[in-house]
């Protein structure tokens, strides 16, 4: 149990660092969705299924989509995604 929790926490921390470090906006959005997913797993392990469900749906799902759509609208987004690796248009 504690090892599962530790693994999830470390994964979440790494993903959180990646959000700041990554140059491609789209990749950063994906990393932030991973943070939310890890957070939702932690909530689940701490026996808060209601919060876990909300975090998974809103954090990992909807806000990820919203951020990605906003990033596409930003004028800098195009340069950044072409500078870094190909953004991977789903």
């Amino acid at each position, binding site marked *: 149990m504690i090892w599962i929790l530790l693994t999830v926490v470390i994964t979440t921390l790494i993903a959180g660092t990646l959000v700041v470090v990554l140059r491609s906006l789209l990749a950063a959005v994906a990393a932030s969705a991973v943070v939310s997913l890890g957070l939702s797993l932690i909530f689940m392990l701490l026996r808060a*299924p209601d919060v876990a*469900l909300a975090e998974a*749906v809103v954090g990992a*799902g*909807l806000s990820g989509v*919203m951020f990605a759509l*906003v990033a596409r*609208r930003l004028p800098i987004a195009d340069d950044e995604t072409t500078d870094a690796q190909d953004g991977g248009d789903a």
Partner: protein
Amino acid sequence: MSWRGRDMAALLLLIGLGVLLAAVLEPILFGAAPMLVGSQIQALGAEPTGAANLVTAVLLGYRGFDTLGELTILFAAATGAGMVLAQGNRGRHDVAPVGFVLQVGSSLIFPLLLLFGFYTILHGHITPGGGFQGGAILAAAYFVPLLGHAGHPLPSGLTTLLEGLAGITFIVVGLVAMMAGDTFLTPFGDHGTLGQLLSAGSLPLLSIAIGVKVGTELANVLAHLGGIEQERG
């Protein structure tokens, strides 16, 4: 400077609103630091509301008015986002070609997402979940066919209508409780058997209203953000 006058009017309106809010909130007591409400609610258990999921019982039963406030905030945010996004960038239509996997996958996953969303809303008083979570799932489901260019599942006129109806339903349920002599949004109705789908009185009604409202609002924001202009009506 006609702007000066408008600014002054806005400032006066804000001050007036602040005074009104202060007058309304002044007699309501704030809790002191060690809040004992939680342990009291836990000690009472599912008895007062008839909802097996205590989180939903708190959200819709004990704190129904706060939930109405949350809905209002979400409504204001969605309206603001719609107003900002509706103007500009309308002509830009960089439609990326949709691959086979996305096209088939979106039509495959859409009904499942719908089913799960409605399940989460309807079972909010029994299992984890409820209006907010289920509504967000419904909004995600709404966006999937848009991604796959499979067409618009709902015209924007219908989503606006549903959103308004859901908001009215929530308030009407609150008013019905007042007609019975209780305070606004007091849970009413037959509690039924604990853990059954048809139980917990008026709480599932509120849950459905929240689910539809959250779902349609978020779907509208997503559609606006995606730059997808829907056919009116």
